């Protein structure tokens, strides 16, 4: 198990909807660091390996300035199929522009789907990738959108293949809170606004003492001694699709939100975790995104299928993972500039939890099946740990506001994801209005239906 024995607390932060190449593809470019060891983008503006097509015209990746988008990008199951552009038995990754046109009706010379960000716009992600470990073969487990991928992340299974306004169903006993409780592992969730876990209708937990405002995180981290600290911490951003934003602006990286606020959020998490060097020595930060969000990535998905579990609301099995997403592992037990190239997906986190707290990577049958198909554990990043924890705590780059967030008035939820958050918020209020408003006071502003 290597370095995981040294760890007391595993901190998991899952942002939204960006691909590896979009956030970290710049790492391998000569003008941004020239890291030949990272499978990022190489000469993206002219490299014909990356060309996408729409009506016979070729489109290349281009440097995109971080900013709010006019549109969300396509990432439903059907349009991810278009993006992957399978020809024969090959995923050509050449249909991102086509999918963007199909979804938005916009036909432009610089479709955002082909945009990648520079380190100036992703300063914290780039910093963590340089100072700790970047995983350049971490894939969203399923080639579809948020809810199925988060379902796999938190249970190993998905009983759905799309995002809809309904409770996200789960396989009994597989949900990560159930698993942690069953293994006597202490855990906590720090959330900004409403928690994504409310979408699983886990209201008792969402309203319980293990769910705390992110505002409490710095104080808790400082006040609690090591033995009191939870063994697993989930940190949640303010979700763009939440029905009410009050006290937090969206910082989850979900378009149309820019990544600037998300970078700031990750910065604040890192600052808290590293404030006490002794606690930091027993901490592992796992940072990833739930899915690619419609942004181009040049690496084909892994040919790991996902059968349809019993009780599913869909019938057609998945034939592959989704596209790559950023994967960063930070800990003082990791050398600066590490790259982990093993195949990973969100079940790599569940493998890690199971190894750490149950002595086996096989969290459940589906996680085991994916492991046997090649998915490796996050623990493998620490397979050859340093003899001693690093004493240095690399200083974050200076903060710079690179993109703004404009908050409009509360809008009637339109997308399936917005409606799903809205439904969960209303159900939460119905479940226990008093406790819900104590925990999520912004919900008092939820417009009457």
């Amino acid at each position, binding site marked *: 198990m290597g370095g995981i024995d040294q760890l007391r607390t595993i901190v998991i932060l899952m942002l939204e909807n960006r691909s590896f190449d979009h956030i970290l593809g710049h790492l391998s470019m000569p003008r941004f660091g020239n890291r030949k060891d990272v499978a990022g983008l190489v000469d993206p503006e002219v490299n*014909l*390996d990356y*060309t996408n*097509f729409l*009506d*016979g*015209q*070729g*489109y*290349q990746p281009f440097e995109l300035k971080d900013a709010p988008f*006019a*549109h969300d990008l396509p990432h439903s199951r059907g349009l991810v199929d278009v993006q992957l*552009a399978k*020809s*024969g038995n*090959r995923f*050509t990754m*050449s249909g991102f522009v086509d999918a963007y046109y199909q979804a*938005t*009706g*916009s*036909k*432009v*010379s610089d479709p955002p789907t082909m945009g990648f960000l520079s380190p100036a716009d992703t300063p914290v992600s780039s910093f963590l990738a340089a100072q700790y470990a970047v995983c350049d073969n971490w894939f969203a487990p399923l080639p579809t959108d948020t809810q199925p991928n988060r379902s796999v992340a938190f249970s190993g299974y998905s009983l759905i293949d799309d995002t809809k306004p309904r409770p996200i169903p789960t396989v009994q006993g597989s949900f990560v809170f159930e698993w942690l409780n069953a293994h006597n592992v202490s855990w906590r969730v720090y959330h900004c606004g409403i928690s994504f876990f409310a979408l699983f209708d886990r209201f008792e937990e969402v309203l319980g003492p293990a769910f705390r405002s992110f505002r409490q995180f710095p104080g808790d981290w400082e006040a609690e001694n090591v033995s009191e600290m939870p063994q697993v911490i989930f940190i949640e951003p303010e979700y763009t699709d939440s029905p009410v934003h009050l006290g937090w602006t969206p910082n989850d990286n979900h378009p149309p939100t820019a990544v600037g606020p998300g970078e700031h959020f990750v910065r604040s998490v890192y600052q808290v975790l590293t404030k006490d060097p002794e606690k930091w020595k027993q901490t592992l930060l796992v940072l990833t995104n739930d899915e690619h969000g419609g942004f181009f990535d040049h690496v084909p998905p892994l040919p790991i299928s996902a059968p349809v579990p019993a009780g599913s609301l869909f019938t057609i099995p998945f034939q592959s993972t989704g596209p790559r997403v950023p994967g960063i592992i930070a800990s003082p037990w990791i050398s600066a500039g590490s790259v982990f190239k093993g195949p990973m997906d969100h079940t790599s986190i569940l493998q890690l939890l199971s190894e750490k707290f149950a002595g086996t990577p096989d969290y459940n049958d589906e996680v085991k099946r994916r492991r046997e198909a090649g998915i490796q554990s996050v623990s493998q990043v620490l397979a050859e740990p340093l003899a001693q924890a690093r004493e240095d705590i690399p200083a974050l780059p200076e903060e710079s506001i690179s993109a703004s967030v404009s908050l*409009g*008035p509360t*809008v*009637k939820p*339109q997308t399936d994801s917005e409606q799903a958050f809205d439904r969960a918020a209303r159900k939460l209020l119905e479940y226990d209005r008093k406790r819900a408003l104590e925990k999520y006071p912004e919900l008092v502003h939820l*417009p009457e239906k």
Partner: protein
Amino acid sequence: MHRMNEHLKILVTLLVTPLVTGCAQIKYFSVAPTTICPGEAVQVDWKASDRVLLSTLPPLPGTGEGPPEGSLSFTPVQDTRFTLKVPALLKSAQREWDVSVIPAQSSRLMGGVAQCSGNPASVSATFSVQQKDTSSRVRVTSIQNNYQRTLKVGKDNVEAEIAPGTATDQFKNVPVSGTWTIRAPVAGGETCDSVLDSVRSRLTINVQMSCKE
């Protein structure tokens, strides 16, 4: 009483507006052709759920507010972005289309997803450029082979073999619009898979273009 009515009106507006204006929708928007020669016109067509705002960058005369359904013609003199917006108090709908006005000489990457077939085997990609996308006045000057392997390119009645890294003018004056085929023969010692791997399952050419006088 009048004051109360006003208050009521405001309240009703506040309650109803989000429901009405929250559904701003663009059912159709197109600009054609999107690649033109200087002096040529493009036609903009749209259909939306409400009155629209048509704007361009750089600005063109004749843009502005319009009916939910309409059609207009413009003659852009340089590359122009057309944006159609259905303004709503809370959430607008928006689409953008770019028009490219090609200068005296212009280059464009064109191509498609490749497949392997035939005997002898070759890897090929076929793609069509519609006249609604590219004006028939836009003509080929030359075709550049970007690969370190020979390509066979065909369009209409013209077939050309282009050596690695070189260009041909055999397509000079052929319209860019139409159906193109790019072939990369599978050489001895190669397999379909190895060729598809080497071109990442896509084939492209660089098309030098100009406008027919």
